[in-house]
């Protein structure tokens, strides 16, 4: 965990340094990636992954086949974008009591996150939260690009 963080930090520092010396290396250096705003990245993430939201059965935190397919696509995209950080936000079911909804939402977020990590997303790149019965609706977990 710490190693990954350190690596990321070094990576960011290296990128910064590279940006400064780039004029001298421009002929040999790799193509500078097109800088994308967070909104463009989010749109690309949603398009490439087939969506940002996976749904669960009532009271359940078990990932169905469609959810696993979407998370696999999300994982592939996140692995191609080591510069982003994502947060999986879980929700309870509508009509649930407050604290149970928080726990169920947290569990759904964790299950989705664990699947992303299983598919190779560095753990440091993905955090979780729960909204419980806030913005209630169908039980779900949403992968949000934080930065």
């Amino acid at each position, binding site marked *: 965990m710490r190693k990954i963080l350190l690596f990321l930090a070094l990576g960011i520092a290296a990128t910064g340094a590279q940006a400064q010396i780039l004029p001298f290396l421009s002929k040999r250096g790799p193509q500078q990636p097109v800088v994308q705003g967070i909104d463009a990245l989010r749109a690309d993430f949603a398009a490439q992954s087939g969506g940002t939201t996976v749904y669960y059965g009532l*009271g359940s*935190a078990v990932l169905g086949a469609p959810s696993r397919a979407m998370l696999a696509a999300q994982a592939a995209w996140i692995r191609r974008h080591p510069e982003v950080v994502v*947060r999986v936000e879980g929700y309870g079911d509508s*009509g*649930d*009591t*407050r*604290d*149970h909804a*928080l*726990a*169920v939402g*947290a*569990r759904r977020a*964790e*299950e989705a996150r*664990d699947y992303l990590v299983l598919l190779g997303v560095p753990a440091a790149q993905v955090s*979780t*939260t*729960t909204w*419980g019965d*806030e*913005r209630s609706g169908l039980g779900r977990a949403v992968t949000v690009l934080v930065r």
Partner: protein
Amino acid sequence: MKRLSLAFLLIASASAAEAQQPGAPDATVVEIPPLSSPDSGTKGNEMLQIGWEATQLIASDLGQTTELMPLKPKREDYVSYPEVTAPSFGKWRPLGAKLLLTGFVQSRSDGRIAIGCYVYDVTKGSELARKGFVLPKSDWRRAAHKCSALAYTAVTGSPGMFDTRITYVAENGVGDGKVRRVAVMDSDGYNHKYLTTGSTIVLKPRLSPRASQLAYVSFSEGKPIVRLLDIGSGKERPLVPNDAISFAPRFSPDGSRIAFSMMLGPNSDIYVVGASGGMPQRLTTSPAVDTDPSFSPDGSKIVFESDRSGTQQLYVMNADGSAERRISFGAGGYAAPEWSPDGQWIAFASRGPYGRRIGIIRPDGTGEKYLTNGPADESPTWAASSREIMFARLGPGGRSALYRISVDGGAPQQVTIPQDGSDPDWSGAID
């Protein structure tokens, strides 16, 4: 009749002084002449004015109970100072009152005031109880509440619940733009104030037994984390020094411990930690959702909800996590239990085809009954008297309000607060 009278109260409760409850047929009728004063002149007038307001507050307090029925105070029932301690019972017997509450307000040379209260059995012509208080002039309400408690205890033998505090989540707006602040007030609605600013979502505030500390759930770190606030100093800190998701805090009856839920990976379990810090101790290990712990009044047991059976049900365990035992077995779900201060009942929110409603059950699993019809009631919390429950009801427009209901049934009575409210918590009596 009872239902009708409570419904009437609901409408009339805007003016506390008007809220003279007809009461249950077997309620003890109380006569409360205006509190007297030994002072004269300007001081005397000032003391009599405080006395009159205190008289109305006492009547309002007692009018909200099912056991006592105050007659509406009248200024012309004024008694002289000597009559406070030597009432002429013959004057009160024809009014049908069984109980007489007299008192006085006296100014002191140090700027404070003395308030004395006396409770008499009118039929027998004998004194039942008396109590005196010296306090700052601005605190006269607290003395009045204690006079109410004196009369209540004289009749029922139970502690009065009039000098207690309520914390809840004050809500402005609906949907995503809703602003939420932790609010705290006296149980009669006075001394209302906000303890958080509204810049972040807050949930489930819980008062320590003497209402000096507050545990609540804050989203200030982007996820729910329990924080502990010292109300007097305003200092606060996370309950446990980690970044795990935590929620559902509740104090032990002596205030020394806090039980709460914490996520370890996908698993919500119940933990307990000292209110002054230390390492949290894990009490449940089930892979299911275990949450909403509440201590028994002697602190030896904890009731909580778990969906380990497939639906949410109530379980009781020892406070060290041993001897777990399921106590509810009905269809649907049982959630958010709270143990009554007298230990006799556990209040809960049930889930089913009817929506969510409030019920009570004995700690051994017997005597289950429902107090409300829903469809969106939750977060029950006991009054210190164990005779009443406050809860939150979500209305059709997505707006939440607080209600109180007697354990004997009747219609829920809406609590007057400055805005919408949810997640109520009622403290014990404050000494």
